[in-house]
């Protein structure tokens, strides 16, 4: 009945564990395959979507575009996660599915030294160089998540379970995850389901408005949608009306509230708190 969200410092391992857990429990597995659907749904290329998830943060100009790609992915993924019994990996769900009690969040880590060894063998580079590359990868991972979601995805406190493949074998990890998810703690309930629905609705609203309002932030609570947009005073009324209209057409939306943010710096400071 619960959800399992896997995050890993090694994509292949995370993918494998996710699939195996889904197999053991008879859950549905959602991985990168979802991107094909997201791409066709939003008329973007699958590569762009994958790059938004994988590439380290770069130029500021690309940032807005990446946030938009991530918005597509988030909306699609949250819709899938509205169902029970799903294992999700590789779609950054651990960064946007938060405070949901029936989502078991798992982080799979490797010993840096081991990663370096594997890397040096695979790429045929020296161990020293491989070590540096591993360090840079970790740093990129952190920077990426901090820029995209203001969270450090290498921070263990983000997860319910952290498994080190340096200590436990992959199959053992699968077993542990399957066991853990059977705890009553992770059973969905009205409250946590509602949280997921609110998140999905907010993501859906944001999806519709992202192109016009790249900086839009949306919250939803039981059909009531609150959108925060940036606007100059003169366009304020027009923009508010526009948001209200677009958002109001979506199924599940009963009431729309639009807040205008003028103090961009202050808002940034607030949202990072």
């Amino acid at each position, binding site marked *: 009945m619960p959800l399992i969200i896997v995050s890993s410092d090694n994509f292949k391992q995370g993918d494998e564990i996710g699939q195996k857990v889904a197999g053991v429990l008879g859950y549905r597995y959602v991985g990168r395959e979802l991107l094909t659907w997201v791409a066709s749904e939003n008329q973007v290329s699958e590569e762009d979507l994958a790059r938004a998830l994988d590439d380290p943060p770069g130029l500021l100009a690309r940032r807005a575009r990446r946030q938009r790609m991530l918005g597509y992915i988030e909306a699609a993924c949250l819709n899938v996660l509205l169902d029970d019994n799903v294992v999700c990996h590789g779609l950054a769900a651990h960064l946007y599915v938060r*405070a949901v009690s029936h989502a078991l969040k798992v982080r799979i880590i490797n010993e840096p030294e081991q990663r370096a060894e594997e890397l040096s063998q695979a790429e045929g580079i020296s161990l020293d160089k491989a070590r540096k590359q591993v360090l840079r990868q970790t740093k990129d991972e952190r920077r990426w998540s901090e820029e995209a979601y203001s969270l450090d995805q290498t921070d263990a406190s983000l997860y319910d379970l952290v498994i080190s493949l340096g200590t436990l074998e992959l199959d053992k990890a699968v077993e542990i995850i399957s066991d853990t998810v059977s705890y009553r703690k992770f059973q969905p309930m009205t409250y*946590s389901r509602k949280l997921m629905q609110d998140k999905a609705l907010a993501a859906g609203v944001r999806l519709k408005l992202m192109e016009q309002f790249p900086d839009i932030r949306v919250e939803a609570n039981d059909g009531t949608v609150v959108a925060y947009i940036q606007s100059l005073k003169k366009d304020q009324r027009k923009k508010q009306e526009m948001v209200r209209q677009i958002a109001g057409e979506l199924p599940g939306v009963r009431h729309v509230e639009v807040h205008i943010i003028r103090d961009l710096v202050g808002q940034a400071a607030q949202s990072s708190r």
Partner: protein
Amino acid sequence: MSDNLQVLLLDDEPIVGRRLKPALAKIGCDVDVFEDPEQALAKMAQKEYDVVVTDIRMDQIDGMQVLEFVRDRWPRSKVIMITGYAMMSLAREAMEKGAFDFIAKPFKPDDLRRVIAKAAHALGSDIDFEAVEMEKVNG
């Protein structure tokens, strides 16, 4: 004993009981409303309810204690927690202690009716929740 689902509702907010008693009666529940957890516990020591709905944050005894008491005394009873102080940790704690469901305030009467219908279903005595819905639409 009637066939009606026996429900105990405990919340130190009197309005909750006042509104939910008739709301639940409509789906065929016999509802006993309590504002004082002690009195509720005393009653439950004698009577087995099918469903117990309890607030978590109360002054003398908190809902978690009520939950533990019911799980202990009447393992068959379904306990539904309602709280204004919903947080992931609290929700997980309630579930781990054997709560049937956990609802955050504010909620609509239908939200609770739906959960109670689910509980009744789990108890093997289905109630016709849809009928009420239909009645509402028609009425």
